[in-house]
């Protein structure tokens, strides 16, 4: 636990002066909290005797003054210490996101989005609770407890001993029930989980359930689980129902002890009525720390566990990085692209996705890559962008290994249209300018024009300011893909990678886009991954991949004449077109 907590130190150290101030306020607040009953004692003692109202007024004034000053410190304590916890949360969150930004795709294969999100949200909050309320209340409770103990012992140590008999029992009760209630609650959650997955299952599989006329069985299962939820909840209620009343009894018991034994002392004359009232008052002061203690212990435990989960991410180092990442300047890239005996297998797979690929693409050339699903086309594209690094061989840009190029420069030189279109939930303008911030209006419009999306964008009331996604306009798959193409073009890349970039666009529009691209592609290296022969024929060279290897290579006419796979594909696509017409 301590070793886990150690990773918090760098964050805590950053705020050491504010921590010091916060703790100073905390100490003052706790001391004054303990002081209030003393003022009450003095007042009551005054009451007991033949008294003067003015003197009583002094004591009451003292009481109110102490409470007022206490309140001021209490404010500072909370404001500073809880405030720090939000600052540390902010730091942690930023570091977390910075780590995420640096991790390669491989990381995102092993961690699901939901998992990362829960670390960034619930675990982050648990750590925040540990750093803020966790630390604050621990210190506060400890000080109040010790202060009360000290004052009471000094007043009457024997009575104090008696009072402290139920107190360990209270703490024990809290931790005993706390754990059991937690476990029981866990079981309730499990049962709820099961029930809710049955509902989920019955509803999402509704067709098969109905097709087999098995609704009744689904109802029975649900009903049984529903009853189980009730049964587990009732167990929880039994614990719960005992726990709080028991606390009440135990805390009440401390009052009884004060009244009973303290009363005897008052009768003896060994204790004043004021001290009696003070003891009563201390019982009230102690109530919250006693109950809250169990809660704080829980908080610290959960926070530690969550911290470990955050640490797991924060401690990882990026797998893929280049030299000079901090440079602001980009290294210029001409655009010669080459694969040299490149082999790559995805993590956990023994079969290489691509093997021994050799390919030289001089700057400015367009190469089309065709091949069936799973033949390694996308892998080639990903290797160029260093989303992965080859297991064997090298990818060369301008004759040098891509791994020697700063990552930012490499990607700055690339325009990438991935197979799975991803757009951000912001304006179309921001999406298109994603790789080229500060783009001019006309530049964005130009990119949109080439990608054949400009006309549609102009038809939206907000044009380029149209916000995409849940809260905005939902574009069709084809439209999204064209925005994605515009985004890659706006990056003004030396190397353009189109990975099945027009799969959701009809052949006619694709043709139009490609014709528009011709001028753009003329002086850029282009990797055109497609499944349409009509698109591939526009390239300077065509490559056919199969099972991760290059099986055919050449010009459109030559490949057709060879009557190989390319020819076969071409023939099939003709047939498809014919079927469309039937």
């Amino acid at each position, binding site marked *: 636990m301590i070793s886990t907590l150690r990773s918090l130190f760098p964050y805590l150290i950053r705020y050491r002066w504010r921590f010091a101030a916060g703790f100073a306020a905390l100490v003052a607040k706790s001391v004054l909290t303990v002081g209030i009953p003393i003022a009450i004692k003095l007042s009551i003692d005054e009451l007991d005797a033949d008294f003067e109202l003015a003197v009583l007024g002094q004591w009451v004034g003292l009481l109110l003054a102490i409470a007022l000053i206490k309140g001021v410190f209490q404010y500072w304590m909370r404001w500073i210490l809880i405030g720090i916890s939000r600052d540390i949360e902010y730091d942690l969150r930023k570091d977390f996101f910075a780590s995420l930004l640096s*991790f390669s795709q491989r990381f995102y294969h092993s961690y699901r989005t939901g998992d990362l999100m829960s670390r960034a949200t619930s675990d982050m909050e648990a750590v925040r609770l540990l750093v803020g309320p966790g630390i604050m209340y621990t210190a506060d409770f400890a000080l109040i407890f010790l202060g009360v103990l000290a004052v009471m012992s000094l007043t009457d140590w024997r009575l104090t001993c008696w009072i402290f008999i139920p107190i360990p029992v209270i703490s024990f009760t809290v931790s005993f029930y706390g754990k059991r209630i937690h476990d029981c609650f866990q079981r309730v959650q499990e049962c709820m989980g099961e029930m809710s997955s049955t509902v989920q299952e019955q509803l999402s599989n509704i067709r098969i359930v109905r097709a087999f006329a098995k609704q009744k069985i689904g109802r029975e299962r649900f009903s049984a689980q529903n009853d189980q939820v009730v049964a587990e909840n009732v167990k929880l209620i039994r614990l719960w129902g005992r726990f709080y009343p028991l606390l009440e009894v135990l805390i009440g018991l401390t009052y009884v002890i004060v009244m009973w034994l303290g009363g005897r002392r008052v*009768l003896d004359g060994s204790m004043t009525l004021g001290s009696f009232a003070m003891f009563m008052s201390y019982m009230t002061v102690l109530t919250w720390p006693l109950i809250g203690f169990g809660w704080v212990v829980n908080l610290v435990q959960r926070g530690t566990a969550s911290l470990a989960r955050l640490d797991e991410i924060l401690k990882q180092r990026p797998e893929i990085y280049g030299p000079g990442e901090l440079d602001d300047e980009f290294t210029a890239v001409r655009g010669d692209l080459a694969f040299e005996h490149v082999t790559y297998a995805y993590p956990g797979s023994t079969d290489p996705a691509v093997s021994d690929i050799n390919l030289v693409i001089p700057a400015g050339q367009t190469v089309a890559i065709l091949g069936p699903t*799973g033949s390694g086309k996308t892998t080639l594209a990903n290797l160029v962008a260093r989303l992965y690094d080859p297991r064997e061989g090298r990818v060369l840009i301008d004759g040098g290994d891509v791994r020697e190029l700063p990552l930012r420069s490499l990607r700055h030189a690339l325009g990438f249209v991935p197979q799975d279109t991803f757009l951000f939930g912001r304006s179309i303008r921001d999406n298109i300018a994603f790789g080229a911030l500060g783009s001019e209006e006309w530049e964005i419009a130009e990119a949109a024009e080439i990608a054949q999306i400009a006309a549609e964008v102009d038809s939206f009331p907000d044009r380029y300011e149209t916000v995409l996604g849940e809260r905005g306009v939902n574009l069709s798959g084809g439209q999204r893909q064209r925005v994605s193409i515009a985004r890659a073009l706006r990056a003004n890349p030396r190397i353009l990678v189109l990975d099945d970039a027009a799969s959701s666009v009809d052949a006619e529009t694709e043709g139009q886009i490609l014709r528009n691209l011709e001028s753009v592609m003329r002086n850029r290296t282009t990797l055109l991954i497609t499944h349409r022969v009509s698109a591939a024929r526009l390239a300077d060279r065509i490559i056919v991949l199969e099972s991760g290897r290059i099986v055919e290579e050449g010009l459109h006419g030559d490949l057709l004449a060879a009557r190989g796979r390319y020819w076969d594909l071409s023939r099939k696509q003709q047939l498809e077109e014919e079927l469309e017409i039937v």
Partner: protein
Amino acid sequence: MSDPAVPRRSTGEGKTVPKKSARIADTRLIARLVVYLSPYRPAVAVSIVLLIIHSLLGVAGPYLTKVAVDRYLAAGTATSLLDAWLPLEPRAGLDFLAVLYIATLLIGFAARYFQTYVMHYTGQRVMRDLRLDVFNHLQTMETRFFDRNQVGRLVTRVTSDVDALNEMFTSGVVAVFGDVLTLVAVFVAMLYLSPELTLGIAALTPPILVVVFVFRQHARAAYRAVRQAVATTNTFLQEHISGMKIVQLFAHERESLKEFDEISAAHRDAHRQAIRAHAVFYPVIEWLGVLGTGILLFYGGYLVSEGALTVGVVVAFLQYGTRVFRPIQDLSEKYNILQSAMASCERIFGLLDTKPQEEAVGEPDVLSGDAAEQPVSSPLGVGAGVAAGVPLRVEFRNVWFAYKDEDWVLRDVSFTIEPGETLAVVGRTGAGKTTLINLLLRFYRHSKGEILVAGKSIREWPEDELRRQFGVVLQEPYLFSGSIEDNIRMHDRTVSSEAVREVAREVNLAPFIESLSNGYQTKLNEQGSSLSWGQRQLVSFARALAHRPRLLILDEATSSVDTQTEILIRDAIPRLMKGHTSIVIAHRLSTIKHADRILVMHRGEVRELGTHEELLRQGGVYAKLYQLQYQEQETRHWQPGEEGQTAAETASDVGENVIPEQSSRETGDGEKTKPS
């Protein structure tokens, strides 16, 4: 209950639910909730009585303290309610009072325990009833309802929304009631002891309420900002984690980090507002408490000096004071719980009010018609074979269908399947093949024409009765959590273990299952991730057979399957079809070849109908489809004997050369040539 003329709100789509949050005192909602409480009236009554007892006992402790002080500790001669029983000797008196105090504590404990138990237990029962109602109601909705509504949302209705109500029952309503009772009891006790002093304390109530009110205003504004900030942060994170590839590909990391920094800072600052509100609120409210003590001491002292009050009363009031302020603060917190519960309540009842749009004809009442489901399934005897059901005749007569308006998905479709015949349906994606099955299963109602099963229109069949005639394999091999055996029998106890084993053998699934250490009892999770896609298909085959269908409906999956399983599946399908009237949406050449006739769907119409050879000779749509999708399967999945011969035959039929060995990929199913 609901007026059919009033357009109903579709509850599944959250957008149509009015944004205005439910009012706390929505009497109609409360009235409907009370209906759920009414079976548990005695429990509710007991609970209320116990709550009252508990509140009264809470008042007793300070009173006993007062008596102790006045009678024995301070030199007074005050009278009290207990005088008749109190011993004269001070020590004995203290003992007596201590015992009495302990007794009130213990009775209070018992009252509180039973009260909590009874109330929560009742709450749980009510929630159970409500969940059951919602679930059963969902079961009556037409199949299309589940296309329109996200399942996740519907699950929320059954779980979280009901839970929010539970929260209201147990923490909300009861706690409010308890708080109010305590407040009343304490005030009555205080008034009894000293009306003047009570008035002094009561004077603090307005400032406390003002402070609480002001705090709530600020806190609400702060929390609104916090919620917004949290939502923004989470959306940003979620989006950037999902789109990390794009961020990296476009070298956008620095900018993203900067944006996140801004969002995070806003998040932190929003929290600052909330922290400030709390940091001010607690000291102020606590100071007001101490002010109350001050008033008590000073004003009380004055009254004591006037001889109008005893010291004991002042001491007792010190304790009462803390019991007054807490409930006043709590009451305002409960408001939120009530509010969210009312919102949940509205959603739940909204869903319950959504009536199915297509009323089932002759369907047994979901809640009471269980008996009607019993007759057909008698356990499959050992060796009875799978062809036990008498084959059916199916006819589509001029069937038209549109999901909406005149957007016809099927146009004038007519065909028959004779008893024992296998009909393969082929066509491109979107040709209307799956729709045929959806209509036959009555997931959707056809718009025009007639579908006859065993000579009777399916509109006249009770839904469950009709479906029990069928053995269905849908394209996606749905699995349920539970064992493999449960999945095959679909938790239906009337399907015997022997029957399960027999059909598993029949569909080539048995060797695999028996290789598992737990065999048929191996647990599957809902996604079935422990099984491969192909194995899941085999499970669906077994499932279809286990229920002894009279008509087999098979929608062949197009997904790729490993070679080993592919062989098993290809071998199993003809065996499935044998002896059954079958309608198969086919993607495998081998399946098509085993069919008696082939129905070619194209753009919602029946284009061609005949045997494989006939259709090839016609040179129409089928011939093209064949070249496009099926032909290469022949060369890839070479099987000795029968298959090989037909392959050669057909090749010469079309007058094409056998194309070169195509691909080493395991399956094609036309996926590769089809634009995805």
